[in-house]
């Protein structure tokens, strides 16, 4: 079924009786060309691009819970491509370009809103660093604009420009950045994959890998054995747990990241705003709630909930740049489990085990990467060679000394 304004009108006039579930509930088959472990945003987009772009449709997505039950539904919905390093920036720019055409591509309303993202700077050296970053972005085909205090004041007059400790001197604007309705991304990809013949199998936990002489030939699951020519793991947050079943240790720690929503307020924020002297980022949802977050809690956790010191730290960051939010009440807060890698950058790669592929280590930047991650992973699975924008995301980069460390903070996952 193709969605359109005409379809809504026609259904509205006939009692909305024609809508159908947007994916099937298939039983797992005995064998597939590709089995994707993990039915989150990245797994579903991988299945979608495998079927649509690379013509591989004998594909199953295995999900332990329900589709989109992990971090695709737990993030702060921001999309952007404001990275610095050549290993990262072309990849994230590819992702932003895919976001821009996504709704038309998969015929689903993901509420993609390019309302802009501003990174504030608070000192002259930080301004210089943002000029450099903006130039790196533009060299990779992205957009970037440096706003001085006056231009920023027109955009966001309520910022605490004369804060004694962290005066706001301007910002780096990426106008093409913005926000997306995150769950709809999972649903849109799921619908697009399902309609092209991909089996989306929920409540199906992978309990082990089928190994034969060092080759991965499928998976053992809670719903039986499923054989596959290629097994593609895509379970960020639980990567270490799943890959340990294949005997692999990863350069990853799992950490908890919290996010927050305030009560609904009148429209006040034009786009996304980030604090340059602490860690705080905020946008306003279409319902009016301020959606914000900050640092990870900083210790290994699979608990999907955090602790109060970080709540305080995040709120202090918010108060430092926009004291007006001090009266807003917090409505909800939640936590998600992040794959924090050793250099803050992700992996899309083959593993040392033939037939087994790995996608993970997204730290807390996985949501914006959803389209490109799926596209590049599908490229790797279909052609057995990395997509040009993702060729640095190798598992052995630490051994070779080719880290992609945006912050330059070294092999310390809780600092990225």
């Amino acid at each position, binding site marked *: 079924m193709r969605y359109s304004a005409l379809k809504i009108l026609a259904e509205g006039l006939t009692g909305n009786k024609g809508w159908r579930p947007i994916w099937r509930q298939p039983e797992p088959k005995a064998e597939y060309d590709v089995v994707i472990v993990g039915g989150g945003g990245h797994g579903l987009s991988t299945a979608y691009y495998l079927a649509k772009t690379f013509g591989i449709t004998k594909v199953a997505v295995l999900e332990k819970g329900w589709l989109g039950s992990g971090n695709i539904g737990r993030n702060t919905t921001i999309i952007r491509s404001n990275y610095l390093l050549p290993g990262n920036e072309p990849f994230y720019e590819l992702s932003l370009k895919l976001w821009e055409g996504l709704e038309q591509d998969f015929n689903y309303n993901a509420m993609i809103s390019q309302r802009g993202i501003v990174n504030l700077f608070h000192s002259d050296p930080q301004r210089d660093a943002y000029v450099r970053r903006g130039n790196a972005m533009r060299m990779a085909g992205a957009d970037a604009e440096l706003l001085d205090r006056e231009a920023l004041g027109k955009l966001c007059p309520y910022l605490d420009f004369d804060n004694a400790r962290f005066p706001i001197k301007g910002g780096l604007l990426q106008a093409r950045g913005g926000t997306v309705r995150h769950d709809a991304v999972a649903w849109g990809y799921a619908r697009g994959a399902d309609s092209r013949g991909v089996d989306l199998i929920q409540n199906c936990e992978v309990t082990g890998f089928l190994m034969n002489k060092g080759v991965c030939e499928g998976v053992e699951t809670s719903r039986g054995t499923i054989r596959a020519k290629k097994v593609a793991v895509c379970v960020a947050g*639980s990567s*270490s*747990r799943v890959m*340990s079943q294949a005997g692999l*240790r*990863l*350069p*990853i*720690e*799992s950490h908890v990241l919290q996010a927050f929503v305030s009560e609904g307020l009148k429209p006040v924020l034009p786009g996304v705003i980030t604090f340059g002297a602490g860690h705080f980022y905020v946008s306003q949802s279409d319902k009016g709630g301020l959606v914000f977050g900050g640092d990870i809690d*900083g*210790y*290994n*956790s*699979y*608990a999907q909930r955090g*602790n109060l*010191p970080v709540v305080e730290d995040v709120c202090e960051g918010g108060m430092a740049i926009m004291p007006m939010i001090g009266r807003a009440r917090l409505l909800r807060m939640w936590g998600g489990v992040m794959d924090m890698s*050793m250099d803050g950058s992700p992996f899309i790669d083959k593993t040392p085990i033939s037939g087994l592929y790995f996608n993970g280590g997204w730290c807390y930047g996985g949501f914006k990467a959803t389209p490109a991650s799926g596209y590049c992973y599908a490229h790797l699975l279909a052609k057995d060679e990395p997509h040009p924008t993702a060729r640095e995301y190798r598992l052995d980069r*630490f*051994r070779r000394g080719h880290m992609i460390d945006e912050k330059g903070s070294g*092999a*310390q*996952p*809780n600092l990225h």
Partner: protein
Amino acid sequence: MIIDHPLLGPRDAAEFVYLGDASLIERPDWQAEDAAERFHDYLYLRDNPAGEHQELWYHEQGDRSWLVVTRDTLTHEILKVELASDVARARGRRK
């Protein structure tokens, strides 16, 4: 989280800095034949278990001791707290 410091008693986790897996105590022998490989594994690879986890916490806003905390990563429950120097000595290190 409250960390029950062996010398100072219960302290708020916010006073501490977290380093990571307590396997970092066991630095490989730099003169070994395969030292480069062993340092790669030591520095970059982690078990990252869901459940009981031994980890290093530094009491930066306290007595500046290193602790080995055994904590459940699924519930955040702290099961055991030891001085890292005691743990290292028990494993045969001189200091």
